[in-house]
């Protein structure tokens, strides 16, 4: 277990499905249009017209406590960092076999340019204290937060939010 697990808090009460997070992720991680998306905005609907509810949830890698992708990777390219719990792919080692994708219950790892690709919490972009992932920075409605998982838990709890369910124990809180 990481000494200081980092994770996301996704506040669906503030998401308006504007897709800014999806595109900013692509521009900052050099992902061409028509290929993959590291982040997506899921939508769940309830009821039928006119009593319809719509809930938008911006999700990416859950950086799980027990990541299914890590345990199945045959080369050790996918790993969970000891210092912050982020799950990352070492593209120098990755052979693009797609096994990690089968181990992930959330369809996170994707095949891109002969390697597997996924959210790394903007590890390479956060060069100084206080830097945040690009999706968090760009969100016009402050629907996304990133930081120590305990802080995310506290912020979510204020809005009646909970940890996202899953056998792999996602490091994501949702309200």
């Amino acid at each position, binding site marked *: 277990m990481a000494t200081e697990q980092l994770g996301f808090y996704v506040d669906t009460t503030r998401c308006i499905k504007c897709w800014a997070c999806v595109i900013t992720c692509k521009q900052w991680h050099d992902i061409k*249009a028509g290929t993959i998306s590291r982040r997506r905005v899921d939508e769940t609907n309830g009821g*039928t017209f006119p009593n319809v509810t719509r809930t938008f949830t911006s999700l990416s890698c859950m950086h799980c406590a027990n990541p299914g992708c890590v345990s199945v990777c045959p080369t050790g390219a996918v790993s969970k960092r000891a210092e912050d719990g982020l799950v990352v792919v070492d593209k120098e080692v990755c052979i693009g076999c797609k096994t990690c994708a089968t181990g992930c219950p959330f369809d996170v790892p994707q095949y891109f340019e002969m390697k597997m690709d996924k959210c790394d919490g903007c590890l390479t972009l956060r060069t100084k204290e206080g830097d945040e992932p690009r999706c968090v920075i760009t969100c016009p409605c402050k629907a996304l937060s990133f930081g120590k998982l305990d802080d995310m838990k506290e912020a979510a709890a204020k809005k009646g939010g909970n940890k996202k369910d899953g056998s792999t124990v996602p490091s994501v809180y949702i309200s």
Partner: protein
Amino acid sequence: MAQTSTYTRRNFLKGAAALGAAAVMAGCSNGALSETGSAASGGNSQATTAGTTVTKHAFCQMCGPARTHCSTTCYIKDGVWTNVEGNPEAGNNWGRGSRTLCAKGNSAMQTIYSPLRITYPMKRVGEKGEGKFERCTWDEAINIIATTLKEQKEKYGPESYGVLSPQFYAVLATLGRRFLNVHGSPNYLHSAICNSQRVFSRLVTLGGPDHDRANSTVPGQLGKTKLLVVWGYNSENSAINQGNPNGRLNAIEAGLKVIDIRPMRNGLGAHADIWVPVRPGTDCALALAILNVIIGEDLYDHEFVSNWCSGFDELAAHVQQYTPEWASGITGLPIEQIYDVARMMGTTKPMGIMAGNGVGDQQNDGHDVLAAICLIEAITGNIGIAGGAGAGMVMPKPMISTEEIDLLTERLPKSAEDIQNGYSAGCSNLVAPEVPRWFQDEITWETGPTTAYFKGLMSTIDGNPKPLRAVFGQSSNPFGATRQPKKIAEALKALDFYFVMDVYWNSSCDYADIVLPACSNYETDVQFAMKNSADGTWIGINQKIQEPLGESRSDWQFYLDLAVAMGYGDDFWNGDMEACLREQLEPSGISVEELRAADHGIFIERSDGAKPSEPKYQDYENLFKTLPDGKVQCSNSWIGGKPNAQETGTLGFLPTYKGPAESIAGTSELAQEYPLILSDVHAYRLCEHSYYADVPYLRELQPYPWAKINPQTAKKYGIENGDWMKVESPHGWVKLVAEYFEAISPETLMCRRGWWQECAELGLEGYGCFDGGSDVSVLYDSDPANFDQFHSAMSKQTLVKISKLEGADNGN
């Protein structure tokens, strides 16, 4: 320099793609800064060497050409623009520190590397619409334009020249208007699909010192509002960083209740407490029924009404006919919901109404809707109170002052007919006044007299009262900007001279005599803007991300060049844009060079100790002083009984239901054949009006022209999610892809217009705007007799029938 080879449009696009190929490839694979961690703020460096990243400042152009809403920081690596973020110094969105951008803003890099860029001037050598052009020089193009305008001025008078206004467009509103005034034409063809329409209605109903400062129904202090009614207002789509969804969400968390009145339960509307899925185009019936309940059930503010309303008794008698029972059959809403909403609005205070484009200027009774909405706000006593309409905190004065470009309004000639009729200068020569000639003056207009865009272009066909002879379309595609492209094509064919300046080849270019390449907003350094806040004042100017592509030029410089060629140089800084800029910046004490060197702009901290202060509440004597009797016009004696814009009759005194040109309740016989209602979102978060379907990041999210349709309806017609549909109205037909959507009435379809741009990078085609294409503008009524009589708004709703389009290549 002149090329002799002839280009068809297709060849031209290929050529343009080849010209920009290196840049395009670099733009697609944009070598993110991240992986090197070298996002150094390198200042305004001129030359870049390998591995160097510099940051530059530019205003985002994704919400319109020449806009200055969002200041951005652009990262340029080895000369290629790779990344963009909001400039934290400027005070975008929620204030200083905010680096947010919307989906469009995050895609901005891809616009300058688009293969649809026009890179050199061209003149038409084929028939209009055929798309055959020959390359020419700038000198030749400007000479042809200037010679034509001078000849036409001599032969037909200066008013024979008109300009298309795409939306608020700073180049046109300043230099373009100044050029019109010096040339002598009032014919600024304003779209009539604009906030201006709502402003006209608010001004004559609720008053205000002038156009820009018309009184509003929108809360100035949302944190104190208890009930917000969002009515046809689309802020999660049209301009996310300006529409302030963030502020609304904060207020909702603090207890604000929201009623959302729109045909779709959209992104921000999904967070509303009550959704009112009104049939598109019938909002006036709903507004009148709300007045009926508020007055009939005695929920209005008697003290306010007796002191500050004029004609209330006439209004009360008039709206007795508009019961919720009556409105239910028109709007498709349950009777009980209309009562509930009316009672909430009548009893919750403070209450504010955000009335948007969807109701005020995209319905042919837009004035009546807005007048009724203004009156709901007024008679409930919500004007000028904390949390009610207006009454925003008063911001301290800016720490920087600049000079606006003088429009030289006094240079527009006053004709004998103007004098005889008491019109403002030029109004007699409007070919199709947007609002009545008698109404147009320095208080009521935005920058000067206006002709309505669609009706003005029709003057070339009907010659009534006299035809425009030359039209300049600058960053405006008339096939996407107004109604009925088939009529527009007819008008452009009849027009003597049409010249276009645009960044991209738009579908109207095929009809132009001259096509000029505009550089993008990111290739000029002549536009600046300020943002004032409690903390201080920020000012920034565009820095050049790159030199203008090919031979493209700044729109600002073009106006100066044309003015010099026309012999108007003395009034246009003799063609020197730097002189024009120096004049504007002079009072600031900041030099052009100093400002251009600041890659995040310049912030001057407040040193005067001033703080935002409470406004004077309920200052009705002052608020209403421009209105007849100094009172809110329940019965409108400012415009009532006076000639309408068409000069075919007189305007009414009281808000009256008219409804769309085609509707379920209004044209029930037609509804037998065309049983469904169709409308469109007009502004959308993945495009800028009809532009940007070519931007890969945006097109990827929505590859095909869509129509949101309730699954229940689609299944009835055997249409699966993702099927192409044939959608026919009495005016034309389009093909659209069905997108199952539960949050829309089974009798309504909602679409996104435009789609004329192809996206080469994704191999996705563009679609035509005529029958068989995919721009819903071809489906709408365009008979000027049906347009709003006061401000020329047009229907954006019609009736359609749908069927599965057999044999369509379903790439979806």
